[in-house]
């Protein structure tokens, strides 16, 4: 059946070719996944489909007719609804106000017909089993309901195509089940679903067909029945998954360099105890909201632990601030390099020199010291920049991330805390960063790395600690470290490690 078709769609932003001649078809009534790494072009494709940006070349066809979208409103009116991440809600409006924003039901003269909108909202919410009223303020809804309100919005406009952009990033397991139940019913009612996600288990659970994009190009479209997650990963990455860098026996298991006991900061995490030894990378895996970032930030002194103790190289210590942490030999490369990691207004040299100067109580800055340091870090981490005086904004995402990492390596830490160390960087830079991390560890550093990128954790961590709902749920090492085992610990109700050993059949998550 003729559904939605992309024909030779291209879009460039400046010099960056976000989409290059992408063509594929989505059958009407199908659930169709679009997957790819960060920067593969998924979000540009969505924006074109939602009418937010216009393609440079190519066309989109819906039921054999060319769609020329003039804007988001036009897309909605033609039956294409975008369920975006929750950041696209209006926190200051009611649920009903959110559903009808931009297309309110009105009486004469633009007067709002609130009763009609409330009634329609109530009907939609009931249909989606969302137990809130139309007049509930949006900022009081839990994330899952906020997400479903966006679905309700698409339904309110009788959309025949619903596009979901990473809809499950902030949902719990039960909430994902609820959302998927709703989507299954919509699909049964003939709605075409386009599902964009980096979570392959969810893709395999929901979708009939899967399209892979890589670096702005169409790679392949495959039937779920004839493929495996490994095939998809290979298609996304464009090469064989890298060999495991970890477990090379470099760790020295004596006194741990970092030891925390019963660390607690409610509601983020409780009773977390862990050791990190010199020469090892400990992966801290968990879904968004599991408390990983808060744990790292608390270790680094940005928050106070309500209970628990910490020791560095066997010496008990309490850190009250980041600078104390840095002086104690800790370093944290935060998750969001734009907001937390880099100073966009300072050049690469100043960025690289800053934490070290704070750590060493440097008062007067010596330009020569700064230059020497910057040249050394740029060379060590092979940061591609035209000069050490370039601004961070002139660098690619991967090289920005290297600067954000390098400024802390410059402090010569004993314990390196990494929060999503390769978030939003391209594949090549990712492998380089992995090599840098392993290299630092080989030199005797201890590394605790939080990541929700499972292949990454599997690739470079010697041990994997799984965090869920603010607590450690298990430790996985060696041969037990498979995607299924880690995912099960991260996402499901408590299982014992022993219980896991017997149930490593692939596809259990489908």
């Amino acid at each position, binding site marked *: 059946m003729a559904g939605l078709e992309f024909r030779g769609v291209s879009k460039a932003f400046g010099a960056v070719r976000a989409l290059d001649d992408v063509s594929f078809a989505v059958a009407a009534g199908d659930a169709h996944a679009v997957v790819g790494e960060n920067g593969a072009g998924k979000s540009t494709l969505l924006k074109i489909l939602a009418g937010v940006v216009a393609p440079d070349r190519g066309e989109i066809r819906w039921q054999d007719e060319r769609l020329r979208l003039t804007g*988001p*409103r036009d897309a909605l009116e033609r039956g294409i609804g975008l369920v975006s991440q929750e950041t*696209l*809600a209006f*926190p*200051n409006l009611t649920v009903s106000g959110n559903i009808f924003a931009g297309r309110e039901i009105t009486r004469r*003269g633009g007067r*709002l017909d609130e009763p009609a909108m409330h009634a329609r909202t109530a009907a939609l919410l009931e249909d989606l089993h969302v137990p809130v009223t139309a007049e509930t303020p949006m900022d009081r809804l839990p994330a899952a309901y906020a997400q479903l309100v966006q679905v309700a919005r698409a339904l309110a406009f009788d959309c025949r195509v619903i596009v979901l952009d990473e809809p499950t990033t902030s949902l719990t397991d039960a909430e994902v089940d609820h959302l998927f139940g709703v989507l299954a019913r919509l699909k049964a009612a003939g709605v075409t679903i386009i599902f964009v996600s980096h979570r392959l288990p969810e893709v395999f659970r929901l979708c009939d067909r899967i399209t892979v994009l890589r670096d702005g190009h169409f790679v392949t479209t495959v039937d779920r029945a004839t493929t495996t997650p490994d095939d998809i990963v290979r298609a996304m990455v464009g090469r064989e998954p890298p060999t495991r860098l970890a477990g090379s026996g470099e760790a020295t298991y004596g006194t741990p360099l970092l030891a925390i006991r019963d660390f607690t900061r409610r509601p983020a995490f409780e009773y977390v105890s862990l050791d990190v030894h010199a020469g090892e990378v400990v992966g801290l895996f968990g879904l968004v909201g599991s408390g990983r970032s808060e744990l790292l930030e608390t270790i680094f002194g940005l928050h106070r632990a309500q209970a628990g103790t910490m020791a560095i190289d066997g010496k008990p210590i309490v850190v009250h601030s980041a600078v104390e942490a840095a002086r104690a030999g800790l370093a944290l490369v935060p998750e969001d390099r734009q907001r937390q990691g880099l100073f966009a207004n300072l050049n690469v040299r100043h960025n690289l020199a800053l934490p070290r100067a704070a750590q060493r109580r440097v008062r007067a800055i010596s330009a020569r010291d700064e230059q020497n340091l910057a040249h050394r870090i740029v060379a060590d981490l092979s940061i591609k920049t035209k000069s050490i005086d370039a601004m961070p904004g002139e660098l690619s995402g991967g090289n920005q991330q290297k600067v954000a990492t390098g400024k802390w390596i410059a402090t010569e830490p004993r314990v390196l805390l990494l929060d999503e160390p390769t978030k939003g960087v391209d594949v090549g830079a990712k492998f380089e960063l992995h090599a840098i991390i392993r290299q630092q560890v080989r030199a005797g550093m201890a590394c605790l790395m939080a990541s929700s990128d499972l292949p990454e954790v599997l690739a470079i961590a010697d041990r994997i600690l799984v965090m869920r709902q603010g607590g450690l749920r298990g430790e996985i090492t060696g041969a037990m470290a498979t995607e299924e085992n880690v995912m099960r610990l991260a996402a499901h109700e408590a299982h014992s490690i022993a219980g896991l050993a017997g149930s490593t059949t692939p596809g259990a998550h489908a």
Partner: protein
Amino acid sequence: MKRLLRAPETSTVAILVLEILFFTWYLWPEAGRPHPFLNLGNFLLIFKYSAIYGIAAIGAAIVIISGGLDLAPGAVIALTTVVTGYFFVQAHWSLGPSVVAGLMVGLASGGLSAWLVVRVGLTPFIATLGVMGIARGAAYVVTQARYYDLSAQLPRDWHVAGVSIDWAGPIIMIALAAVFQILMGRFQWGRSIFAVGGNETAAIFSGIRVGRIKTSAYLIAGLTAAVSGVVLAIVQGQGKADLANGYELDIIASAVVGGTSLTGGRGSVVGAVLGALIFGVLRNALPQIPGATFYDRLIVGVAVIGIVVMDRTIAKRASKGH
């Protein structure tokens, strides 16, 4: 009743009532003497002077709710008095057309702010800071250190339909507040203002014409400032370049004290008018307390902070109780 208690304006009304009760008690006269604060004539005075920035506060609240900011209203008020005065006194136009010319000042400055914010892409602070300078500067250029004396040519003890012209400001303020409260709460346009202020990106994705909505907000802010200017020109009987100096801050403070959030997306025009009255009462009562005159600005400054903190605390408690 529950709905009334939850209305955003309720706490502002409560503050105003408490304030009036306090000054009524504090300024209670000795037996046999008239109350210096609690009397009809004094309340008219409060209304009359509050209206001058209260009217402009309506537009300021709308701009702030839409996620913007307008620093220009004080200067626009001054330029409006000057332009109205120029045509009425210098060019010998009749009052009606002179007033219309004055109102055009508001549309022009609002339009300029909107163009700078929407088309040129300046931040509202910078754009309206510039417009403020342009408007104030234009007023000085037109007057050349003179001023226009409107009072000489306005009727003495002027009554329209049996009502003193003194009531014009308060009546216009209440009427505009009512009209815009309804437009903001019950009409698509108002809902779009809230949506743009709440989340601009989401508004774009929802097909709201964000540029037009912002433009309408700045135009209304310019126009209400110009109405304030006309009222001031008639009440004061002057068109003068240095009038309404620093009013922009009183106007913004009125909106904020009235529950409008500077981050956008939340607020009320009735609240802004109530905020103007809160300051009007303070300004009226403080000089009647011996020795308090010098503390006037200080007390107003403390009051702004105190009221907003109080309001936020109440709001937090209310949302927790939910």
